[in-house]
């Protein structure tokens, strides 16, 4: 059966002005014919027809005459089958070979696309982690005095949420805990400076360089001085391990590298890097928390303070607040405390046995004075 339908396609021929034209393609019993809008007609008999399949879509069928001066082409999905039928098997072999070659090449093309995409992703991820590692290493080359400068600049610009407590008994008690831990710090030359802030927040934090802030809420809730020492040890560890500076240098490093590598290549890539950074910040921070836990326990142990006090503090806070860690700032910024208590207990168990001395602080008096303020 001969297909009588008309397909839309085109013609390349030197006899047309400009060499090309759109055309209506018909399949007659003898050959392929094309009629241009200007009324020109072109014919290629099936027996002379050289068939190729290609074009941008990969499904354009080209019928070419032997000296390739005339090409009739059509992209219609039904055209290939219709051509095979109309030519009564004369073009089957050429069509089949073209289809097979096309499939082979598109498979290879897909593989290249996948490889390029994969390579790009690997390169970006590799560069990201590489830069982070370099940035982290670079922190060790920065003198400790820089930490102090950053810390005091941050401290001055911070809204601490309450007035500073200057009661010598309270501040002295905190300072005495810090002083007992300080000789066992991981780096020399860091001066720890304690500030007590009158605020119900159950929280404490350390800034780069050793500025430590304790909120009265923590002092009120803690059962004894050792529990506060546990928190302070952990926070001091953040300062001595220079976590703040590492974070800053990593963000800066990644931002600078993105700028340098991609330059103008655009907001999109930069935004992507930023998102990736955000997504990884949590695990990174958790890694630092674990490091600080371990280092804090080590310092407490060497200073002769019972490191398990911090586990007891967690228990106390949980009893006071039930299952609502959001109400307690220190817990909410320090998630997964179940896991961490377990890790702390494991770590303490692995330490050589040691006699722990109680801190010489009248805790009841400190708490009374805090409440009085």
């Amino acid at each position, binding site marked *: 059966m001969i297909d009588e339908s008309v397909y839309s396609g085109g013609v390349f021929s030197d006899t047309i002005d400009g060499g090309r034209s759109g055309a209506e393609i018909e399949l007659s019993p003898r050959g392929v014919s094309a009629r241009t809008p200007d009324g020109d007609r072109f014919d290629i008999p099936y027996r002379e027809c050289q068939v190729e399949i290609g074009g941008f879509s990969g499904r354009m069928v080209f019928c070419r005459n032997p000296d390739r001066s005339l090409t009739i082409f059509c992209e219609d999905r039904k055209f290939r089958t219709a051509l095979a039928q109309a030519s009564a098997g004369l073009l089957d072999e050429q069509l089949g070979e073209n289809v097979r070659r096309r499939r082979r090449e598109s498979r290879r093309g897909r593989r290249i696309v996948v490889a390029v995409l994969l390579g790009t992703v690997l390169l970006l991820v590799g560069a990201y982690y590489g830069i982070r590692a370099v940035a982290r290493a670079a922190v060790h080359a920065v003198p400790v005095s820089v930490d102090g400068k950053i810390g005091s600049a941050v401290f001055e610009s911070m809204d601490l949420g309450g007035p500073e407590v200057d009661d010598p008994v309270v501040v002295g008690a905190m300072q005495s805990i810090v002083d007992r831990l300080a000789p066992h710090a991981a780096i020399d030359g860091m001066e720890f400076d304690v500030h007590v802030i009158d605020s119900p927040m159950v929280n404490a934090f350390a800034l780069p360089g050793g500025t430590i802030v304790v909120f009265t809420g923590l002092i009120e809730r803690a059962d004894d001085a050792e529990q506060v020492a546990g928190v302070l040890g952990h926070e001091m560890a953040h300062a001595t391990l220079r976590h703040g500076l590492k974070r800053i240098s990593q963000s800066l490093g990644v931002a600078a590298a993105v700028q340098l590598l991609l330059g*103008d290549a655009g907001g999109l890539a930069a935004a992507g890097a930023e998102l990736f950074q955000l997504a990884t910040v949590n695990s990174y921070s958790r890694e630092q928390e674990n490091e600080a836990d371990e280092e804090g326990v080590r310092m407490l142990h060497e200073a002769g303070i019972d490191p398990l006090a911090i586990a007891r503090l967690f228990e106390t806070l949980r009893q006071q607040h039930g299952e609502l860690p959001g109400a307690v700032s220190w817990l909410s910024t320090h998630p997964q405390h179940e896991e961490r208590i377990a890790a702390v207990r494991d770590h303490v168990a692995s330490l050589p046995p040691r006699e722990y001395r109680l801190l010489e602080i009248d805790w009841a008096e400190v708490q009374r004075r805090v409440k009085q303020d």
Partner: protein
Amino acid sequence: MEAEIRNKPSFANVHVKLGPGERITAEADAMASMNSTINMQTKWSGGVARGILRRLFGGESMFVNVFSTDSGGDLVLTQPFPGDIECIELKGNTLYLQPGAFLACESGVKLGLGWAGIRMLIAREGLFRLKVSGTGRVWFGAYGGIFEREIDDEYVVDSGHLVAYEPSIRVRIGMAGGILSSFFSGEGLVTKVTGPGRIYMQSRSFGGLAAWLNAHLY
């Protein structure tokens, strides 16, 4: 309608003489000057959705301006970057234009947006390209000079230099040489085109300009 491309090739612009009742469609902001007898009507380029797609992915604006006149007049159309402008006449055939290349067309020409595919994105040629079809003249511009070539066998074009190609042209991505020479030659990925058909190329690339500027910024 008479149209002449002037100041070729560096600062080409199209000088159009519109007769009464004639009209020309141009990319938004392409008009540099015109007689006051010419009316300008702004239209969504092929409808709202297509206009937005064209803006987002086709590197063209959401709108096109249609210029017409009752009494006749001149207008000058130009492109925002230095370079040549080429005119082709469509006779029922189709041409794909790279993002940003389209300048103007006669009223018998249809403007469409086509998905170019991931391979074109990797070749840094954009995910979409403009499809012009129908009957009439089309003007498109390029950065630098424009040169055309009839392709039959495989031909290699560096990324960013392809401006327009016919649907009969097959485009593949490839490496300019081996892995190392592709990397160090600065050619990287190239587009390999196979005919039959015609391609139009530009003698400069925006990527090349951006990289050159970037290297001289600091």
